[in-house]
């Protein structure tokens, strides 16, 4: 994190991200938007996408303290990005924006299974289609 960058205490989404969040919530897999938001961060982390570009037009959605009360979110980001993490809040915001987009596309547009979207191997013999 550069000395000029300020540590983020809130995170949000761009309109596109918000739209993606709405779509994801429509799948009814998530109890709250915050849950979807955090899952989207994990999806994005897993996708190893480029999050170097800062977001424009972000609307605050959550307080970082509420989003990550136990610090696990920051810890995970740090474990992936290490010294590159910089401001974990900012990084989380960009990850969520990207992750929600992925999820919305896969869940709704591609009608992929949740576990597929989450990257959980579908090796279960109890699959309904099987």
């Amino acid at each position: 994190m550069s000395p000029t960058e300020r540590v983020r205490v809130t995170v949000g989404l761009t309109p596109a991200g918000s739209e993606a969040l709405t779509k994801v919530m429509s799948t009814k897999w998530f109890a709250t938007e915050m849950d979807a938001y955090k899952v989207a961060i994990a999806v994005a982390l897993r996708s190893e996408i480029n999050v170097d570009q800062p977001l424009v037009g972000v609307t605050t959605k959550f307080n970082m303290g509420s989003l990550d009360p136990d610090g696990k979110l920051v810890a995970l980001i740090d474990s992936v990005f290490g010294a590159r993490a910089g401001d974990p809040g900012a990084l989380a915001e960009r990850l969520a924006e990207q992750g929600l987009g992925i999820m919305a596309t896969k869940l709704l547009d591609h009608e992929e299974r949740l576990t597929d979207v989450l990257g959980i191997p579908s090796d279960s013999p109890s699959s309904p289609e099987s």
Partner: protein
Amino acid sequence: MKLRRLTMENFGPYVGKHEIDLDVPSSTPVILVHGENGRGKTSIYNAIRWCLYQTTTDRQGRERSTHSLMSYDALDIGEYFMGVTLEFEHDGDEYQLERHVQAARRPASDAALTFQTSLRQDGHFVPGEEIADRIANILHPSIARFFLFDAEMLSQYEALVDEPGRDTELVRNSIERILGLPALQLMQADLRTLRTAAEAKQLTTVKATKRHDSLVAKIQQSQDALAAIDGDLQSLQDLAQQAEAERSAVSDELRQFIDVQADVRELESVEEQERQEVEAEKRALEQVKVMLAAGWWAPMVAPVRERLAAARAAIAAATANIQADATDRFLIHLLEHAAEHDRCDICEQAIAGPTRGKLVSRLEELHARLKTANDQHQALAGGVKAQDALQAFDDADLLSRLRQGEVDVRRSRLRQHTLANRGDELRRRLRDHPKAEISSLEHRLNLAGERIRTLQAKTAERRLDRAQQASELQGLQKELQKLPGADPRTSTEFAIYSALDGVFEEALSDFRSQLRIDVQDEASAIFRELRTEQGYAGLRINDQFGLQVVDLNDRVIGEISAGYSQIVALSLVGALNRCATRVGPVVMDTPFGRLDVGHRERILRFIPSLAHQVILLVQSGELDRDRDLRYLAGKVGRELTIQRVSHQSSRIEATGVEA
């Protein structure tokens, strides 16, 4: 009763066997037995009494022991046996009564004696237990005093002249027995028994009638209850038939919708299943939501595990390198020390020449490796840090649960979809049919079925009631059949017996009075025949058969002599014999002892008419054969004399008329 023969053996003064023939014709009824005082006249009297009743009394009226009757002479010679046989006739039957006693040694009491009695009637033995009753029936002990007359025991006859006292009841009973009253009393008793039986029967009938009425009422109630139950059953049956008809009608109506009925039921089932699946989906989805809220990092589990593996590998490599570095440092220390002193501290050999060159080369090599040691420590720290951070996200079970949760949700949604499709299909098929009407009909059908089942249960219940009621009724009817019928004869019978009892009681009282009057008249007639005092007009007999002498003015003479008491007693004995239903012999022991010559003559003249058999046991002081026998002229059937054998033994000899 008429005596035939008396046989005595070792009885009183009669040692050995002694027979007295007593059989005399009625025309000559008198048997005279002469004997002086102490010879054995009373022993003959006692022998007859003892043989008849196994008892006799002394002159004071006390019962004598049997062993005291045994001959002393016989006992002295060791003959501990005594026997008396009395042969007699009664009511055309011949009897032989034998009574014996035997002792093992000279008896000091009756306890030492063995008694044996036998009675033969026309040659046939009478059972031992019946002997006493049979004898009593012939000559009851209570009336014996009037036949076995002992003038020396006058006191018992004088009692008859006394005012009614303690013994009057006994006397009266005895006299009434002679007169045959007990037979009538027995008849009355029998009559009363019959009346009591009739009364009991009547009571039973009355009770039975009451029970009958009660049973009839109960039967009526039971029949009413049964009829009510039958009515209920009929109603239930009617209602069941109505319900059955309803069900049948509805079934017929439904039959036209039979094809769609199944669809209706399936649609209802499908809709229900849909509702259930929605709920199932909600539950499964909720679980997934909970899992995602807590395990939002699930997508990172796989990368985290890879990173963890890398971190662990880095830690392992760094650790290995650090250990190698430590070993190198130790070697450097040893090699530098050896190089400095040209001597090996381990093997203590000198280092020189080419060896030293190798050592220097080795030291350089080791120092070169040490240059990367810091990097190894940094790598170890980095690895440990990464491992610590990533371990919190290593949860393979979360993935498994999430996967199962999604499967459950998707499966439920798939089922819902399938059900929805089926529902749509069914709804399409039912679109043109009156589902509401079918449902209504089905509802009515169910109601009818339910009603039928209820009615069947009630019918079964009432049938049980009916069976119970019918059983109860049957029991009552059986009981009624067992009851004796209301027989009007029972009350008539009781009335007749009651009336007869009353009549009999009155007749008995009259008969008793009449007998008393008859006895009184006869006794008075005899008394007048026997008396010498003309002032004594006659006898009066009261209700208790108490005797009183009355004068010419019918006044009771208060005080009479002992001789007149004897005459009064003889008058009564004569009167009783004349009035008695049962005639018997009269045995008179010392009958004239208290009588003066005038009375003796009169009595001697009277005696042949006293009974059909009269045994007079007399001593010379009271009867002089030459002087007095003429008064009995032609009436003596047999005359015997007791002869002295020793001071305590006698024998009997026929001395006069033989019958």
